[in-house]
């Protein structure tokens, strides 16, 4: 009796992946961090952030997902962070993207300390 073959992956009903606009290299992450990242999906930046050679105003950058695979040599997931540019989203939960895995590229550069100098009068 022939074993009933399951539907091939191409035939299976799989929701299309959420669209994204660009990716940023992620540092290797653990499985626990991967689970934490999942909770951040759909959130937007709560403050301006420089990313992908562009400054993104608050609530205009959405974290879509992490995409990668386990590397057995170090047991960490290697991959990228996917982002989507959005029109100011007032509904989405906002958070500080600098906490997103502490990715250096995501950190907003520290605000320069304003320096006011007066010409020294002699």
């Amino acid at each position, binding site marked *: *009796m*022939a*074993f009933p073959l*399951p*539907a091939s*992956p191409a035939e*299976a*009903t*799989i*929701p*299309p*992946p959420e669209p994204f606009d660009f990716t940023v290299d992620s540092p290797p992450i653990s*499985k626990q961090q*991967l*689970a934490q*990242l*999942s909770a951040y*999906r759909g959130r937007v930046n709560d403050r301006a952030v420089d990313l992908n050679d562009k400054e993104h105003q608050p609530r205009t950058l959405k974290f879509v*997902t*992490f*995409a*990668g*695979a*386990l*590397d*057995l040599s170090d*047991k960490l*997931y290697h*991959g990228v962070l*996917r982002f989507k540019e959005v029109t100011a989203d007032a509904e989405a939960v906002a958070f500080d993207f600098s906490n997103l895995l502490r990715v250096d590229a995501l950190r907003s550069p520290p605000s320069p300390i304003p320096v006011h100098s007066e010409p020294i009068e002699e």
Partner: protein
Amino acid sequence: MATHVHSRGFTRGLGAVVSDETLTIQGGGEVEQITIADGVTDQEAACGIDFSQLTSLYILASVAMTLETNSSSAATNTIVLKAGIAYRWTSPGSYDTCKITADVTKIFLTNASGGSGTFEMYWGYGDVTP
């Protein structure tokens, strides 16, 4: 009784068939096709593999996934599955040893591929006959 059939072949240029193998195994079990959403870590599925009897194994994930056996924190075996590329093993029929090395009572699946995907797994115990 389930019958699992492994088919694989190799065709030389100009269409000359060098090998065309078909291996049949009677009996075994399966984890029917399940969908694992993106970002899911350690989704558990029941599984009962008696390693001492194992003669055939076929695992397919439509996206990159990680399969861990028996425990999500201290897995007996960890298999990194590539998208759409099945892991196949038969004894006889494979040069390498099986990536499963002990009994399996449950499996844990992690999908960090960036998209939802399917997973399925079939194993056999009977004689592997050409």
